[in-house]
């Protein structure tokens, strides 16, 4: 009698939440069991995400089941979950990364501390919630959920380095969270609504003296998001934190910055879209400037970092900057490319994070073992005898080297992989602006952006080249790293995903284009949300 599919939309949030909760009291001794349950739920989420994405892709700009009114309260009043192409895409991406990281962690990293799998599931739930929700304050709640879990995971395994990095990370993000609250409440104070769609609808008809407060609120919100997205100069906490985190965690963290970006994309085009009247395109200049500065800083950092972990952290910054600036420039054509870039770079970076530890394990075996089995004492602590670190598969080095090469090519955006396709798409979008004459159509900013894009790729190439040579070629043929199969597989899978993206670039770009179009005329969607009927027909 009831259409169960209609509840599909909320499962990506509830399933991990429930599993995570259920795993809490399970004893740490049978971690593997926990891991398996976690894996099952992550897998389920992934499948659901794929189904949702197909739904979103097939049916119109807003699928029939794309709106979920929690508690059966209609849109502006209750909380709604909204599914569209973009959110579906992010769900898929997240689940994919999570799957990889989960498998990877089950090799050994989840023994580094307690409650890894619960925290992991809860992080997943938080992320999905942040992607799906259509309500400003609910977004805050899920942000906090995600952040809290990320704190937990960052500190997973403890140790001075992680704790020091974590302290900064937490402090900064707590400050940002209070900014978030201020912004949200200010917006509520002048518009009297929390629903994003409703907000967009109301903003157009708002008295100027009130609108300027909406803008203030939005700006303050923006800072909160930019801290997460890692815009210069709010991003110094990021590289140390990401470098300090355990590999699987870092791999998932690759998506965290993208959450900030995602929300900015959402709100920017929804609230300050073309229909926003006087305050249309508010804050674009800031985004562009910040983004470009971030690219530069990230590129410099990439060049300047000796350890691979920091390099990866900085390349996170580069990708954030690229996206921010692309959003800020706001040419319709670029958006699709930017989305493609988002997916590709996220996959790449997380693969790289997973790879790093495997590669370095070969060089200084034992250091990480120390990190894993950081001697821990306590009443509840079971004995953690340090197990064999993987087995030396013949040709491991070759596989690792190949993966590294792929990472390098992807990071530096060299052909033929998706990194290149993404950059090409962005540039193409930039060059294909209306206006017959290119020379006049493109402003100095646009050219700067082009240059920065190229230079950042170059920087990545030089740095990766340098580090790669040092690691794979110059190193005396020492111990071949001992690696579990389930550790290398996720890396390979993620990279394979990138290759798939490059091969299937056509269909993917079509999807991205559609998603971009959704973003560019959001009001249509807003009406759908606000006019959605309640269940039970009352």
């Amino acid at each position, binding site marked *: 009698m*009831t259409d*169960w599919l209609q509840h599909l939309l909320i499962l990506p949030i509830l399933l991990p939440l*429930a599993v995570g909760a259920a795993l*809490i*009291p399970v004893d740490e001794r049978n971690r593997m069991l926990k891991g398996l349950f976690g894996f099952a739920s992550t897998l389920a989420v992934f499948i659901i995400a794929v189904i949702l994405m197909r739904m979103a892709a097939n049916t119109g700009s807003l699928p029939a089941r794309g709106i*979920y*009114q*929690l*508690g059966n309260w209609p849109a*502006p009043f209750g*909380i709604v979950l909204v599914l569209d192409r973009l959110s579906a895409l992010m769900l898929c991406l997240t689940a994919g990364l999570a799957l990889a990281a989960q498998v990877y962690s089950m090799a050994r990293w989840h023994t580094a501390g*307690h*409650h890894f799998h619960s*925290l992991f599931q809860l992080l997943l*739930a938080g992320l999905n919630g942040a992607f799906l929700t259509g309500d400003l304050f*609910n977004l805050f709640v899920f942000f*906090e959920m995600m952040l*809290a879990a990320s704190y*937990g995971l960052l*500190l997973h395994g*403890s*140790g001075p380095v992680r704790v020091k990095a974590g*302290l*900064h990370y937490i*402090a*900064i993000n707590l400050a940002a969270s209070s900014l978030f609250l201020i912004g949200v409440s200010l917006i509520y104070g*002048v518009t009297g609504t*929390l*629903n994003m769609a409703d907000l967009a609808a109301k903003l157009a008809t708002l008295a*100027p003296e009130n609108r*300027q407060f909406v803008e*203030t609120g939005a700006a303050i919100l*923006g800072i909160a998001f930019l801290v997460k997205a890692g815009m210069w*100069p*709010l991003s*110094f906490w990021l590289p140390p934190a990401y470098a300090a985190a355990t590999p699987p965690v870092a791999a998932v963290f690759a998506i965290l910055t993208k959450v900030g970006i995602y929300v900015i994309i959402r709100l920017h085009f929804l609230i300050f879209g073309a229909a926003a009247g006087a305050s249309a395109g508010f804050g674009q200049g800031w985004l562009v400037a910040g983004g470009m500065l971030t690219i530069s*800083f990230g590129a*410099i*950092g990439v*060049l300047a*970092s000796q350890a691979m972990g920091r390099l990866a952290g900085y390349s996170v910054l580069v990708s954030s900057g690229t996206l921010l600036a692309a959003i800020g420039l706001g040419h319709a054509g670029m958006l699709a490319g930017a989305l493609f870039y988002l997916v590709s770079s996220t996959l790449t970076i997380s693969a790289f994070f997973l790879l790093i530890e495997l590669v370095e394990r070969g060089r200084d075996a034992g250091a990480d073992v120390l990190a894993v089995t950081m001697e821990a*004492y*306590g*009443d509840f*602590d079971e004995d953690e005898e340090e197990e064999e670190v993987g087995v030396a598969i013949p040709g491991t080095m070759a596989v690792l080297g190949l993966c590294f090469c792929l990472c390098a090519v992807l990071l530096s955006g060299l*052909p*033929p992989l998706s990194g*290149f*396709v993404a950059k090409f798409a962005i540039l*193409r979008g930039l*060059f294909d602006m209306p206006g017959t*004459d*290119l020379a006049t159509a493109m402003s100095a900013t646009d050219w700067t952006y082009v240059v920065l894009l190229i230079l950042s790729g*170059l920087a990545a190439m030089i740095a990766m*080249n340098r580090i790669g*040579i040092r690691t794979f*070629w110059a190193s005396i043929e020492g111990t071949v790293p001992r690696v579990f199969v389930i550790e290398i597989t996720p890396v390979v899978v993620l990279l394979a995903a990138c290759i798939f993206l490059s091969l299937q670039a*056509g269909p993917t*770009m079509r999807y991205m284009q559609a998603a971009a179009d959704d973003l560019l005329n959001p009001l249509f969607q807003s009406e759908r949300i606000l006019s959605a009927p309640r*269940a039970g027909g009352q």
Partner: protein
Amino acid sequence: MLPVFILAPFAGSLIAIFFPSDQRGATAWFAGAIALVCFLATAGLYPFVASGGVLRYELDWIPELGLNFTLRMDGFAWLFSALITAIGVLVVLYARYYMAAEDPVPRFFALFLAFMGSMLGIVLSGNLILLAVFWELTSIVSFLLIGYWHHNAHARDGARIALTMTAMGGLCMLVGLLIMGRIVGSYDLDVVLASGDAIREHPLYLTVLILLLLGALTKSAQFPFHFWLPHAMAAPTPVSAYLHSATMVKAGVFLLVRLWPVMAGTEAWFWIVGLAGLTTLLLGAYFAIFQQDLKGLLAYSTISHLGLITVLLSLGSPLAAVAAVFHIVNHATFKASLFMAAGIIDHETGTRDMRKLSGLFHYMPITATLAMVASAAMAGVPLLNGFLSKEMFFAEAIETHLVNALDTMTPYVATIASMFAVTYSLRFIHGVFYGPMPKDLPKKPHEPPRWMRAPVDFLVLACLVVGIIPAQTIGPFLHTAVVSILGDRTPQYSLAVWHGWNIPLIMSFVALSGGVGLYFLMRSYLATSVEGPPVFRLLQGQRIFERVLVTLSWKWARSLEQSLGTRRLQPQMCFVVVLALAAGAFPLVIGGFKLPPLLIRGVDPAFALLWVIGIACAVGSAYQAKFHRLVSLVLLGGAGLVTCITFVWLSAPDLAVTQLLVEIVTTVLILLGLRWLPKRIEQPEDTEDLPFRIRLRRLRDFLLAILAGGGMTLIAYTVMTRPLPDTIASYFLARAYTEGGGTNVVNVILVDFRGFDTLGEIAVLSIVALTVFALLLRFRPQADSLETPEQQRVQNAFDDDHPERATGDSIAEYLFVPSVIMRWMFPVTGLLAAYLFLRGHDLPGGGFAAGIAMSIGFILQYMSGGTRWVEERLRIHPLRWMSIGLLVAVATGAGSWLFGYPFLTSHAQYATLPIIGKFPLASAILFDLGVFSLVLGATVLILIALAHQSVRAPRAHTRAVRAEKEGVR
């Protein structure tokens, strides 16, 4: 048909990887077969191409962006692919014998095939972007090939420089191609070639030109980017023979030829290309003379020959283009053979240093002969192919195309350059094969194996044949290629050995005789001189490049990262605050913000007084936080209290209750933590001795704080004095009771209207509890905070030195009466919690408040009895409570699915039981129960985990010490 050219090599390389590394022969045969297939396929396509047809193959890749997998073969492409595949076959054969047994051959051949594939891709691609793709691929693969012997430092450096240069150029070229595509409106090569005028007239033509040239010139090692090529000579000789003579370095000139119809013929083109070409031509030849390394000499000669081709292309006349294409082919043949010969020499003698080598003719006459012929071709001796193209070059050089200095210079430079060419060719022959018997060679030289020499034989033969009867051999192929480029602009030209007495011939004679003379002049010097030409030796491009690269990408980057970034928290916080202030102020400032009128009406003196106290508390606790932690905590409590009263005053009882409870727990929490912080000597510092910097920073922070506070005040006041817009609240107020089934609207919002928020919120709480728990399991207190606090020590000591007292008596006495009372408070607290919980839906209270209250009850017991005392009596399972709570909440929400309603749809009604009477029965209450259980669990877990440290830390300390001792042993 066309995809085969790309697929076969790449597939082959994929397969080749998996050959066992000892199977040298098998791998070689496999690779050779692939190359041969490609060659035959090319050959098979000739008839079609010769008839002026253009083969096209198109496969969708990203049609939206106009990037398709388009392959296109016309005569020129055919010529090139023939070259690539043919020489490919020969090089494979050669490498089969060249590579040592211990080299990992499969990798070599895999990379080799991959390179062949991407090279073919360049020449065949019919889409500009696709061309760029393959272009970069060649860079990457060549990087791996050059670094094939990566244990050798030179190989690593050479590879890195090569990649950096070529990839850099490639990226620039990409942008150029993008712009070009934008100008034309398509990336398809046919379209591009069709619209030359549009490009040449376009204002961005110069930009495009420069970007493209950056690509082309870096790729084919033109001045000033030439220096990577000599360093790439660290590669195995087959690689050099293939990449650095026939294929990769030709990619640049290939691009120039490809785009010649649309780009060439302008002033800018002439100047830039011509200048680069001439310089390269001259310098390359000059440098080549002074090389002591065989391959180095060849490398520089390659550079100079490429310069020659570039010059030809720069001239912009069709005939010159013909000459260029012709010379491309010729150079490929003789240079490849020369490289192979050099390789043979290296292989058989073990050295490539010309100072050591001499008189080899005696040992390897055949090889010597071959090498002599080839280098004669290089020198442009008549009856060899090199001669023909060089004649054409001279002929073009003396033509005047544009009237300017460069054009007039060309013939002289050409002559001098070819004079140098003669010199270094002569040196190559004479120095290596003649003269005294070589001494102290690493190996005893002898002829190479039969099949290792075969490729050289073939190529040299080709040189001869083409040199003698060009029209019958190369002629038709050349023609098809030229036609495919120039179309109807194809000029009349004759490939004859003898054009009669004319200036070019004279120039050749001058060059030949001059070159010979020059060689014999410099001979003695060269026999002993160090590497490199006299003057220019000092400035080595690669050194400069390296230094620049290191400076830019390492030194500056590091210092910039230091200066632009920071690893300290305070500056970061500062940035956050400043940016937030800016962001907040920006819209108000540009929006023309006007201050609302100050209205004092309705100011309640008591309330005002209250807030005077509150503000005092806040400021005080900020002031005391450094040296009187306890006081600042107390004052914090005061501020919280005032906040709580404010909530009550402004009609928010729920908030007041929650705020109060939370504040109490927080205080206890921080007190628990305070024990682990370092003791701070309580001396309020005098600000005199502080350095100025610190005082300045404090001032800055103070101002920032004032600004932030002022901003908040301003915004808050303005918004609060404005009328409330029509908010969603009215909806809630109207339906809270009728549909939500509760009179306390706030609580109904929490558990029903916005129950999802609450779900997330309790999830946050549980996450934090887990984190805290997990982190504290790893907690390592500092040594100085390890021993028990001195109060306890003193008190216990007091007990100990009194025989009639047992340890812990004092504390027992101290706590005697209080603990009795606290124990009785436990059930009362429980009652209060139940009260708060049950009434929550209708009156202030609710699951959260109840949970906290209950947990406070537990904490009270811990305080009175101590951890051990309590846990002997009560088994508390906070983890279970949390888990159950969260699950209950979720399950309650999901329950509504059974009735076909969305998650968290609540059901409320008032049931009536006989005795009890009417009581509310809302599903929201169950949800609230979940909240209660979770909050209780989480709070208790956090507090207890912290409290356990006092029990555990000392024990752990002793354990750690013991462990260290054992470690020492």
